[in-house]
């Protein structure tokens, strides 16, 4: 499985930093898990949707909306009035989900490979590991 391309990774990192991580505050409460919760939930969903044989287009869109919904929840909000934020997050969510879906297609749903892809992507998002070029 190949990792998300660096441009998408970079933009995803920036959007998450701008609209999510910066709102989590600074302190011991902000763990790696809390920073990655929306992403993890979204990737879980993508796997389940792929396994259920659902339609890629609608499910990847839904995954984008799901990422945004989890970010709203994790930042203690029900809504946002910022349409730019909504667009940015759902867009990166949809693109990441699209990539994950393609990888699942390619590996015929190899769960362990998918898990390592998700973990590597998460590390790259948090820049805890160098991005493979």
């Amino acid at each position: 499985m190949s990792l998300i391309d660096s441009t998408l990774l970079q933009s995803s990192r920036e959007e998450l930093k701008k609209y999510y991580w910066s709102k989590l505050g600074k302190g011991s409460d902000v763990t790696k898990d809390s920073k990655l919760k929306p992403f993890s939930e979204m990737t879980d969903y993508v796997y389940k949707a792929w396994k259920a044989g659902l339609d890629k287009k609608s499910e990847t869109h839904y995954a984008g909306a799901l990422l945004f919904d989890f970010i709203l929840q994790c930042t203690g909000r029900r809504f946002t009035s910022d349409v730019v934020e909504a667009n940015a997050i759902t867009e990166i969510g949809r693109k990441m989900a699209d990539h994950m879906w393609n990888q699942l297609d390619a590996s015929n749903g190899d769960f362990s490979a998918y898990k390592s892809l998700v973990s590597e992507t998460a590390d790259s998002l948090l820049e805890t590991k160098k991005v493979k070029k």
Partner: protein
Amino acid sequence: MKKNKKVVLATLPLAIIIILFVFTQFSVISIFPSVSAQDSEVRVIDVRAFQFGWEPEIIHIDTGEQVIFRIEGDKVVAHGFYIDGKDFYVYIPPLETVDVGPMVFDTPGKLKIRCSETCGPLHPFMVADIIIEPNFPYYTFLLSALAVGAVTVVYVQRGPKNKMLGVSLDKEVDLLRVRGIGPILKKALQWRGIHFALIWPNVVIFMIVLASGFFGNPTGNLNFSVGVVWILWLTAVEYMILFAGRTWCTLCPLPAFGEWIARRRIYGVHKLRKPFSLDKKFPKSLNNMWGSALGFLGISLVVPWLVTRPWVSGLLFLALIILGVVFTLVYTRRYFCRVICPANSYIGYHANASFYAVRSVDKSTCDKHIEKECMRGGPKGYACPWVTPYPGGLTESTWCGQCYECVKSCPLDNMSVKYRMIGKDIANMAVLAKRRFGMAWVGFIRFNLGIFYELVFFGSFWALKDWGNMGIIFGVNLFNFGVLSPTTSAFQMWLVWAVIVAGVSLVAYPAVFFVFTSLAKMAAGAKNLSTKNDVFVPFSYALAPYGLFIWLAFTLNLILVNWAYPLSRFSDPMGWGWESSPIIPVEGLKASWNPLAPELLPYILMPIVLIGLALAINSTYNIAVKLFGDQRMAFRSTAVMAILHTGMALFFAWIIIG
């Protein structure tokens, strides 16, 4: 000063009605002094009671004349003799003749003789007219209609911009942002369980409707399926449309069963499973108003059976539930509601004349938002089940079933509920709907049937009722539905009825409307527009408020006279004579038939119709301004259409008091 003038002009129609009403009620006696009761001879009026009418149908009496009604009873069943506003009910046993009176009628006008003893299925509509001459109120009503028509035309001649009867159409209140109630309402609408919580009680009521329809008392007004549905529900829906748009569609249990099965969920958003449905694409050519409009008309052809025979009502609702489930299991979304449900046609059409609408807070925000969860569905809500192309850009309520999924799913909190003046969207939607003939015909069918029903059910013409009823005097439930087999001659008379109902609604009135539209276009001097393709359908949208107000008047008549029937049915749904029901054990709900202010009904109904008239004329003007882009042209065409609209108000006045 200018503003004051406009306010005066806008309120003038109402003022005229009030002045004429007061004049009629208090001055007429002094103008036409009554004959002293002692001076006059007593006139004996022979009246024959039969199922379901009186002979003569119309009785003329002079103001102050002393009369005795000599009532010859029916051969088989007992009837009751009641006159609007008189404080008595006289029991008329079969084969007996009863004298009622002497009595004097002091106030000119029209009163109804009604049957006060349940005598069969059409009992609530067994009426005759007493016209107390000189029928001055009738002429007053005619003058009022002419005055309201004329004043509204004068008002639009002044060129009000984007206004309806003096009220700005730009102003609206966002109900979800009103201090106090707004946040509570918003929370309720965004709660996923709200739909289920609202529908569930109606599912229970629906089961009672089906059970009573098939197994309850065969006489309509003694049965829950008829008393509650065709008196209480029918009235409630019309008033819901005016004040709360398509709220009935929010509450309706008909599509719920199919939707719950297809979604595999009662109220949550269930992703990760394909819908339990074939998820077929609905044929585009059928995705319009014609299906439900013709369904509504089809039901109207058998309406005397439907609203008086429990079995027929039960059968209709069972069929609708089955169709609702089947349609949802084939097409997933609410195509049953969109194209089959007969109520959808009129609820959707008239919702455009409602104070209430689901709209976006700021359309530009919706436009900018890429994901559009309202269309695709999101974690908090399904994609619009009504297949509204773009809920964020809604400018009409026709296809919005008020399920509030968009309010739930929008992460930008940009969908809301607006309260605004009647007719805010009519002009805009009308000019875009140049070839939506289905919508135009919904308007024609509804408008005509509202007037026709007033004539049939509350008019004294017994033959009209009998034709529609196919001459059958029996009530019907599952066990005796065979008695509905008509004789050949009765069926032939029903065909006459069907031709009248369908012919007037589908052909005659639309033809007259077309002629007036054509004249209006000529008067406007809009040579570059085609009557058929550009003007006819848009102008028909003025019937959205007018038709709604006609129905508000008709159903108010229905409930004010017959309120006791549905109320009693809550304590005895099956009509089996239970002292109290195990479902709602409230003995106090057993009410005796006792019409509310029946002698004042014309004075209550006519102002409602006149408001509808003023709204229709003003709507025509607003549509014409958008269509022609010129105020003078718009005024000239409106003046022509106002003649037709006023003519229909005059006709309504004739029915209720002429």
